[in-house]
């Protein structure tokens, strides 16, 4: 009895192992951008169980031979693009207007895995997305890192950054705060309360985590006054903010450097002002990290336009992959091609920063995202 059971188990284990290995995929190409500044011609990835098992020369020989091979000759591999902030056409579900302080509301609760907007993003090269609460109130809530998939999307991390909004959409006539003064004062009030250890509650707990550094704090601010107040709060309460939007950041780069803030920039287009086009290069020169948002096409245009106006290659690639992954708090899983990371890979016919390169394939969690948009 035991013998046969053991044997059955062993056989099953063997079968499973064989099955697992048979499902390995080996992707080869001409060049691989592992991470910003780390590029190699030994462009090979072993994908197993939706994760990257090994890269380049570290791929063991037997795994190489037993894996399903997919060769993209002359192509360039890169980590899937990451967009830190967006609403996926679900603004209504994500906008809590009545109460200005809802830090514990989670975007993940509104996530629609079958949503069309997310499904369309994947095949263009965007494999991770920060679904954020809408800027309808001051303490808007907790963003979620979500990913597109072949049949449905999934939540990678439901507990990403805490989002604050100082922009005008968060200030309405229906409730306090109706002004920027009120919004900033409210922030101070909430932060002071959170510092008070005697106060408890789910919402307070979230704010406390943001203040002690165990949770990323992102503030949506565009104008000089909004940005200035955001930096004031960061200084006073000792946290390193992620500044969302930051349209007028060009006027306060010094303060941004001092605050060790990182930025999330709106897409650059042909209509963008000269200051906006030159801002990324200026930030990179001062060592300020930043990322671009939007769909893959808009992000690529942003990188190309920024490169056109002086942004270096590594900073541009970082803005599309590693930095947004860090800002989403999921840099251990996505944003670069590393062992045990999610197998999110984009394959370009040429350099990803060249607009003339076209997308050959997109893998999310090891699965090839077939294009729902016929090309």
């Amino acid at each position: 009895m035991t013998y046969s059971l053991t044997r059955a188990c062993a056989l099953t284990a063997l079968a499973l192992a064989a099955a697992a290995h048979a499902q390995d995929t080996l992707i080869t190409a001409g060049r691989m951008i592992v991470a910003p500044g780390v590029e190699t011609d030994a462009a090979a990835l072993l994908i197993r169980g939706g994760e990257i098992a090994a890269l380049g020369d570290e791929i063991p020989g037997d795994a190489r031979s037993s894996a399903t091979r997919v060769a993209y000759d002359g192509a360039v591999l890169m980590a899937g693009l990451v967009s830190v902030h967006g609403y996926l056409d679900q603004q209504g579900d994500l906008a809590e207007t009545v109460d200005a302080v809802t830090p514990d509301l989670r975007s993940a609760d509104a996530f629609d895995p079958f949503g069309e907007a997310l499904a369309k993003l994947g095949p263009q090269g965007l494999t991770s997305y920060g679904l954020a609460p809408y800027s309808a109130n001051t303490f808007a809530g907790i963003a979620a890192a979500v990913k597109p998939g072949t049949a449905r999307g999934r939540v990678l991390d439901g507990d990403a950054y805490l989002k604050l909004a100082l922009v005008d959409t968060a200030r309405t006539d229906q409730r306090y705060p109706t002004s920027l003064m009120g919004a900033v004062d409210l922030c101070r009030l909430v932060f002071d309360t959170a510092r008070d250890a005697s106060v408890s509650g789910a919402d307070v707990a979230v704010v406390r985590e943001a203040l002690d550094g165990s949770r990323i704090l992102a503030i949506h601010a565009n104008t000089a006054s909004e940005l200035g107040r955001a930096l004031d709060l960061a200084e006073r309460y000792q946290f390193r903010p992620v500044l969302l939007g930051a349209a007028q950041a060009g006027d306060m780069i010094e303060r941004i450097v001092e605050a060790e803030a990182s930025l999330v920039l709106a897409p650059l287009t042909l209509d963008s002002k000269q200051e906006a086009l030159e801002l990324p290069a200026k930030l990179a020169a001062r060592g300020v990290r930043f990322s671009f948002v939007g769909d893959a096409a808009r992000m690529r245009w942003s990188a190309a336009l920024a490169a056109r106006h002086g942004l270096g290659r590594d900073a541009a690639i970082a803005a599309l992959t590693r930095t947004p992954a860090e800002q989403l708090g999921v840099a251990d899983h996505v944003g670069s091609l590393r062992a045990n990371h999610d197998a999110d890979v984009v394959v370009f016919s040429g350099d990803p920063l060249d607009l003339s390169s076209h997308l050959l394939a997109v893998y999310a969690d090891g699965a090839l995202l077939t294009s729902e948009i016929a090309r």
Partner: protein
Amino acid sequence: MLQPSLRGAALAVLTVLTHGVLPAQEPEPGTPPRRGPRGAAGRDARPPMAPVVGLRVGTIHTVSDGTIEDGRILMRGRRILAIGPASEVPLPEGAEESSYPEAHAYPGLVDALSDAFAPPSEVGNKSWDAGVDMADGLDPFDKQAQKLAQYGITTTYVANRGEGQWRGMGALLRVGRNGFEHSDLGADAVSLRLTAGPNDAHPLARAGALDAPKATLKQLEGYKKSLEKHEKDLETYAEDYEKWLAHYRGDKKDETAEGKEKETEKGESGGPETPDAGGATPPAGRGPGRRGRRPGGRTPGGPGGGGGEAVALPFAEQDPQPGGPPRGPRGRGRRPQDPEGEKAPEGGDESAEKDEGKKKDEDAPKRPKYPKPVERDPAKDALLEVVDGKRPLRVEAHRVDEIRAVLALGREFEIGRLVLEHASAGDRVADEIARAGVPVVVTELMPGSVPKTYGEVGDDEMAEGALPARLHAAGVAVAIASGSARKSRFLPMAAAWAAGQGLPRDAALRAITLTPAEILGIGDRVGSLRAGKLADVLVTSGPLFESETRVLRVIANGTTAYEAPSR
């Protein structure tokens, strides 16, 4: 024709003469021979030839004849003299050359649709008709547009982008000595807007909008006929007038005065006109608005005016005639006289004379009536040129029904040179556009730049940037344009994006060089690097489609229009 021996002798004589008579023209050793009045080639005197200038570049993309590694372009004056590998195209002795061993050379870029040098009031004007000319409203001091050459653009076409139906005629501009100038190399197109815009409109309203230009074009038939009829009438008038003149001049000697008066009238008569010798008193019945065409001697007429005055008075400064005040010139072309005035009862004398004449000669021909001229309409004139194929017609259309309406319009009125602008849903009717042989100018390629309503709602939603690829695949000639001067500097990036979205790279490069040149009607002069074409060259630090590439030098018409400061 001289016999060979005689010719030789003649030449010898000439040579001797020139050498003997003009010793000062002996060229000094070492200088190129000068051409005298009868140069060595036997041609007439010409201005000295411009020097040959060379340009050697690591990679030359000719667009029309492939890529040349380590190539050389020889330019003389405004044109390309020769182009090829440096090993096959030697640099003439003494010629200067600039060398860019690591760089790339392209034809000067051609922007098929822009608003450069046009003030917003002109570009957005809604109330133009087909006859308004954008060239009249250009602002040569537009600072931003003056920088176009820095980005490699050497030819641009500027047109009205307003929301009126007819958008007048555009203006083709090329880099000249002092910045961009209106060029007469190609005929400027008439622009038409045939779209209801992104908002959904009622189908009947849409159908009405699509039919509206037809009404204007249908009127052309009648206009053209009236113009032709007028031409015929003028010929008939000339003949009749000749006959009438001959009759009266030939027969009557005592009516010479009257005959001479008639001579002074404006008309087709090319017959010999005796100069006014004064003499007989011209009758009081002088029609208003007469204008002498020939110099020398027109009788002003009027009582006491008498002969002897040799000044032509264009308008009757004479007795006011009962026929009415003198009428001014009408329309372009001829200054017609008002035959009515002459015909009106003017008083007894002339009619009396006429009666006399009539009594004498009952079958005398009647004085012919000057045909009433057609009132010219610049809009119709421009559209006639469109229909005759002398001017292109550019039409902005987005949706499928709009594009089809444009193609139908082209067929119905046999418009020889039709160009589509935007054609946002063009991918769905690409085959029809290709069959009609209509090229397309695309400006909106950025993500989110085309309203969703322009495409049909369905499963196959095409990304904006993929339109050129789809059109090209169906055989449509595609040009990529900036749409505005502000965006012109990104023209290569737009073409690169189109390439990334599926347009073959060579077609993408062609879309900002040769194809727009052909659409503008100047494809034989610019748009590619080939001997004989104008010397418009763009030199860049790397391949044009790479984002980090910088412009090093721009040459237009053989002259450097921009040179990057050396780092």
